């Protein structure tokens, strides 16, 4: 049977029973629409979690010395330069970034103009020094290197800290919203050897200034990230430990190397801090699980739609047995009749799938708009909760066709089996 004839006859047949066509296509549209909507939502929320809430770089491994150092007693598990060199020689390691915490307490007391508002507050400040390569790419003002005593200390803040400030802190304190570009260059005072939380501060208080030079996903979440050399200098000046590192970030050549590196680091008596990674994985898994459940529900709707189409087509095939006999009499083969029924279902599925997909995308636009317009600001609030890759959009339409055609298999077989001699008799 020619395609043009097939298309023409299917069009006529669908037009003949408009109400049946609409109700069959509607079922498909609901199922496909729900599926595309929920999968798009899951992908969109998953992306927010992955890229903004837990921006884990899949190639990075955080190595820390063991907390209770049994290894230290035996001479292992210390994170000194020699250990760092050994880590750097592990196969699969591309780079190692050393980290050293500033081991004296510090506070920042601010009193003055803060981006046009007045701010007066004091906070405990945590700082960690890193090999500049780790955050260099995110530095936008000046250089990320030790500037020597008396000079402002360059520091990088975490994107997420800025997000929390903007969405939670600033609105409550009526402080201005800040962007990464705005805070770069901002200078604030810091006092070392002073603390609000511990009384173990010893030695004289020294004052310095910190200048934010960039915002990074690799920055310490609750504190500032400064050049390693600066941390070493501050520790040495304060007379505390300045040769053991508080951590090292391994950058693997490839994410697939990560499990091997984790095992190797543990084998060296070190611990691997995979808390962030695990949280990211858990959050990702929760989103994936919810999405799967909703997708399954939507698939169920598609199955019901297919059953509905099977019923509708069965009835149509029965009601039109005589017409099928006529087609057979003028030269339709069994295969032609089967093709006609399947093509009719395919057209229903195509219409339903396309309408459902368009409706889902439209609804997502509406939801995003409503969220932007009516929901209050909250940390990590995204511009869009949805992601519709081409595969999802095409998949929706294809699913509609597949569901409808699957529902039509039985009726198509029965239609092809119609005995023309019997239905045309009389």
């Amino acid at each position: 049977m020619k395609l043009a004839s097939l298309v023409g006859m299917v069009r006529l047949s669908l037009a003949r029973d408009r109400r049946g066509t609409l109700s069959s296509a509607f079922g498909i549209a609901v199922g496909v629409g729900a599926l595309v909507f929920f999968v798009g939502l899951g992908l969109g929320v998953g992306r927010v979690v992955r890229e903004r809430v837990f921006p884990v770089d899949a190639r990075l491994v955080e190595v820390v010395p063991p907390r209770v150092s049994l290894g230290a007693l035996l001479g292992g598990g210390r994170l000194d330069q020699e250990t760092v060199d050994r880590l750097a020689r592990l196969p699969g390691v591309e780079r190692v970034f050393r980290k050293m915490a500033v081991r004296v307490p510090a506070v920042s007391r601010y009193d003055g103009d803060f981006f046009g508002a007045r701010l007066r507050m004091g906070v405990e400040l945590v700082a960690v020094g890193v090999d500049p390569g780790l955050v260099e790419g995110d530095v936008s003002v000046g250089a990320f290197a030790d500037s020597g005593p008396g000079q402002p200390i360059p520091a990088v803040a975490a994107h997420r800290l800025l997000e929390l400030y903007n969405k939670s802190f600033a609105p409550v304190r009526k402080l201005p919203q800040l962007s990464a570009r705005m805070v770069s260059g901002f200078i604030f005072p810091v006092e070392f050897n002073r603390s609000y939380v511990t009384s173990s501060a010893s030695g004289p208080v020294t004052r310095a200034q910190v200048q934010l030079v960039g915002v990074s996903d690799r920055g310490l979440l609750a504190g500032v990230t400064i050049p390693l050399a600066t941390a070493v200098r501050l520790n040495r000046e304060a007379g505390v430990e300045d040769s053991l590192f508080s951590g090292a970030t391994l950058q693997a050549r490839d994410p697939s190397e990560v499990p091997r590196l984790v095992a190797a680091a543990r084998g060296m008596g070190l611990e691997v801090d995979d808390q962030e990674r695990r949280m990211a994985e858990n959050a990702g898994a929760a989103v994936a699980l919810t999405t799967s459940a909703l997708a399954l529900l939507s698939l169920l709707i598609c199955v019901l739609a297919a059953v509905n189409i099977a019923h509708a087509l069965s009835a149509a095939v029965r009601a039109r047995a005589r017409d099928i006999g006529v087609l057979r009499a003028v030269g339709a083969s069994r295969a032609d009749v089967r093709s006609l029924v399947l093509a009719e279902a395919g057209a229903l599925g195509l219409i339903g799938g396309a309408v459902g997909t368009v409706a889902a995308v439209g609804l997502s636009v509406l939801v995003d708009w409503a969220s932007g317009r009516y929901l209050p600001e909250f940390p990590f609030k995204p511009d869009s909760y949805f992601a519709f890759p081409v595969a999802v959009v095409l998949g929706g339409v294809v699913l509609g066709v597949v569901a409808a055609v699957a529902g039509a298999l039985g009726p198509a077989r029965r239609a092809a089996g119609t005995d023309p001699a019997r239905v045309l008799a009389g």
Partner: protein
Amino acid sequence: MIAAHGIRKSYREGNGSHVRVLEGLDLEVALGEFVAVVGPSGCGKSSLLHILGGLDRDFEGRAHVAGTELHALDDAGLSRLRNEKVGFVFQSFHLLPHLTALENVALPAQFSPGWEPRVQEERARKVLQRVGLEGKEGRTPARLSGGERQRVAIARALFAQPQLLMCDEPTGNLDQETGAGIIELFRSLHRDGLTVLVVTHEDQMRAAAQRVLRLQGGRLHPEGQS
């Protein structure tokens, strides 16, 4: 045109027994012949037409129609035979109600390659003109009289220029006068060279045929003898 020998046909009843309808029937119809088959209701006339027209494969015996042995054809082959070589006309017209006269007539083209849409329409108009329905191409069957519907059905049977027309009581649903018009149409088609095999009760149709056969006891007998 038709050479059938030893045709046997039986239907299975609900209770498992068989009703024998045709019992070793022989029939020869020459090219261009006009043959009428008569017989009482239920004697198997429709069954015979369905077998010879390739609508029913479930029979025994050998039947050559338009040059091919029917049992040698598969479903696709039989469909092509019906599409190209045999035209059917039924008692109750069997038009598709949602299609216009023109679309009904062009239906065979949908199952055959090589019919350009423009050629299809031209041909359909031409056969509708041949059966006297010029100007009614756009009407659906509901807006045609019984006689006109049967003319549309005849036009559809003629569409693919078949060699053989099989008609099952084509005037059975029509009044005397309308039926007479249809019979006249068959006569004229026959004059044009078409082979016609018609099942009928109508005396006028009998009179129009060159040969009348009576179906009795599952076999055909020349009318007048028994």
